[in-house]
């Protein structure tokens, strides 16, 4: 039995320790917001936070996550109030939407470490998250917008 702490809740899961975290999240816990893309850490669709870092859950054995804090797109905020979620909705970023939870989870780490990212910072943070619809220009705008919302929140 492995104990996981996902989005503030504790779960005991009876799975093989080598099972990728992605499948435990999706199939065992039913948190299907995190997507399977390539299965080899190349596309970023499966990005979740493990102790605050944007890990690729498709290649992360669940044993690595035991007892650690995991956040998925479902846990980023309780009510879509995270600046990235607000910006994503405002700018209407997604097209098909498949990659977007991974995009947002990656961008959340960027904003945590750099509250006013430049375009280069965005390139450095986001180049590992692929979007087949090509929503990159809107992703970039939304990250800048989220940074503004973050700054406004800080001023209040």
């Amino acid at each position: 039995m492995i104990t996981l702490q996902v989005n503030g809740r504790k779960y005991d899961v009876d799975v093989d320790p080598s099972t990728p975290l992605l499948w435990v999240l999706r199939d065992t816990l039913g948190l299907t917001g995190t997507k399977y893309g390539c299965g080899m850490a190349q596309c970023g669709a499966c990005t979740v936070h493990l102790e605050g870092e944007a890990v690729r859950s498709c290649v992360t054995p669940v044993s690595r996550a035991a007892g650690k804090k995991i956040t998925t797109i479902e846990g980023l905020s309780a009510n879509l109030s995270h600046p990235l979620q607000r910006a994503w909705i405002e700018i209407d970023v997604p097209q098909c939407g498949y990659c977007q939870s991974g995009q947002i989870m990656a961008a959340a780490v960027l904003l945590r470490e750099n509250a006013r990212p430049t375009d280069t910072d965005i390139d450095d943070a986001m180049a590992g998250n692929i979007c087949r619809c090509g929503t990159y220009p809107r992703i970039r705008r939304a990250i800048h917008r989220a940074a503004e919302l973050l700054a406004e929140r800080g001023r209040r």
Partner: protein
Amino acid sequence: MQRHEVKRRRRWRWVTAASLALAVAAVVAGTGEEPARAAARAEEAGARAAFGAAYAVFMHPRCLNCHPAGEQPLQGDDSRPHAQNVQRGRTGNGKYALKCSNCHQTANVAGRHMPPGAPNWHLPPPGMPMVFEGKTAGELCRQFKDPAENGGKTIAGVIHHIEEDPLVLWGWSPGEGRTPPPLSRAEFVAKMKQWADGGAPCPE
């Protein structure tokens, strides 16, 4: 081990022994100096040659890819820039959402084109980049000997690093689709110890 590999290693051993003997003979015959002194000079020549042999390992993609001249790690047997615009970052552990251990686990993920892994997968930090890429054997040797450029290590510390660090040892268990360095781990360590024991002389 394949037959050509065994042959290559035997040949290498023979060349090293012959060079050493020739060096002693040449020194004694040419200068008439004392045998003890000649032997010391031959030991130094052997040590220098040993570093030359180990240099082929340092220049191999399994070592060089994480000791790049630029700010991006390299990957693959062709040492191409790492996919996804991965950067060294402030600590050598990557940047923002692209930190090394976000994909690289503590062990290889099984299968071709899957992320390799070892404990503490990282690049040298920007303040101590320990660049291998583009260095001659002499330049690399002098870098290894300079604590200001080698992470504050003594020669013994350098030897310990290459003999014990799990990330270095990973080079000989690189996972599917990646070639290991041209010397075995034991041969490589032996060459570096010979270099250290012979006074750590550097090629020109």
